[in-house]
């Protein structure tokens, strides 16, 4: 780690301007992924732009329109302990809790987790299932991108060099909703082999009003399984869930490695998708009964 200029901007605008000027800068959020790459001498940036000195990027705010806005600098631990997240989108609490160990969750941020674009990262499948959008700020303009369109390849995303992910926006869900994030890994603390997130919302009559399904670790990027939309406006049956789970398997192109073969991963995407959808439905039904 030699000759790296370390800068601490005080505003997002200042950070974007620094990034626009630099040829080979890296953004430091929590550092849980970046520092590993630096320590292993796999990347050689000229400049590190630390976002932790920018105030206000770690808020969790419900907006008046019913959206939930999560600052990109919220640490996994903040998500895990947030009552509003627990109440409105518990699937994120589950995803946060499943990440590594408490010391790492005290360090890593949700924005960093997303931007690192690790194909099997835990937040993306849950956020895909929630239909989240990402607010991106650049040196010239801001834009929002649906999370499903944010990832472009292994460890790559659509951010321009001068852009920063500043906020994650979760749209309001139907009143009777439930979510489930399920993860396949070797030990509790290890990286996911697969992660599947499902969210289901029901209307008053018990028909499906919203369905989202995201899969991580099964392709070069986290996948949005758009086939989940076939559940909408119908009463959800186990055979419909089975159909969506099979569709999810077809969309996967996993790799084989020492942790799991391609065939096993595909098989397990089907299993986890079925279980996650079923659990999400059970939770949504429970909220209907409680009301």
């Amino acid at each position, binding site marked *: 780690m030699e000759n790296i200029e370390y800068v601490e901007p005080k505003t997002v605008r200042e950070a974007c301007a620094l990034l626009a000027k630099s040829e080979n800068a*890296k953004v430091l959020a929590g550092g849980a992924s970046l520092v590993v*790459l630096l320590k*292993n*001498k*796999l*990347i*050689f940036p000229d400049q590190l732009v630390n976002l932790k000195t920018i105030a206000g990027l770690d808020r969790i705010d419900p907006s008046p329109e019913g959206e939930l806005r999560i600052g990109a600098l919220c640490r996994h631990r903040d998500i895990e302990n947030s009552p509003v997240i627990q109440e409105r989108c518990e699937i994120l609490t589950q995803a946060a809790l499943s990440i590594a160990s408490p010391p790492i969750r005290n360090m890593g941020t949700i924005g960093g987790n997303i931007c690192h*674009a690790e194909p099997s990262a835990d937040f993306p499948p849950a956020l895909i299932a929630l239909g989240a959008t990402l607010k991106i700020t650049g040196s010239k303009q801001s834009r929002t991108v649906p999370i499903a369109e944010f990832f472009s*390849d*292994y*460890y*790559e995303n659509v951010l321009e060099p001068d852009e920063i992910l500043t906020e994650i926006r979760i749209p309001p869900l139907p009143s009777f909703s439930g979510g489930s994030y399920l993860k396949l890994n070797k030990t509790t603390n290890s990286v996911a082999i697969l992660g599947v997130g499902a969210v289901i919302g029901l209307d008053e009559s018990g028909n499906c009003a919203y369905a989202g399904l995201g899969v991580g670790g099964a392709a*070069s990027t986290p996948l949005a399984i758009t086939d989940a939309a076939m559940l909408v406006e119908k009463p959800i049956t186990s055979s419909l869930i089975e159909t969506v789970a099979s569709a999810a398997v077809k969309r996967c192109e996993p*790799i*084989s*490695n*020492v942790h799991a073969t391609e065939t096993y991963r595909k098989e397990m995407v089907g299993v986890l998708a079925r279980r996650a959808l079923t659990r999400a439905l059970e939770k949504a039904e429970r909220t209907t009964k409680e009301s």
Partner: protein
Amino acid sequence: MIVEERFVVNAPVDRVWNFLLDARSLAGCVPGCNHVEPAGENAYRALMKAKIGPISANFKIRIDIAESNPPTFLRSTMRGEDSKMASNLTASNVIELTSLEPEKTEIYYRSEVNVLGRLGKFGEGIMKRKAREVGEQFVRSVKERLETTPSTS
């Protein structure tokens, strides 16, 4: 890891052979490969770039043609290093050409690639998938160039 592919181009076997043996035209079909220059008899030097997310590798490689039987068989070896990444790459390649029709040739290539050092940590799974992508682009470029450029021989 082993990368292999079999594909057909609409060109006579001699032309395919000459094309593949011309280091510059061949390098033009390998994504990330440039600065090819001869390095003695039956040997070449080149630079090869590969990128996975934020991690970029720049290998200085040397290719030696170990065995050739024109116009159907070619065996070569490749050794390279990226000193910044403290990583090495070795590959043993075989190319076989079969004339199917006067204007149709089947190309078969098989490459056994090993990456050692820090980049080796990357896990074979992702690297193999990336290598497959490189292979697919290679096939596309070879077909495009051989099937569109008029024969000069």
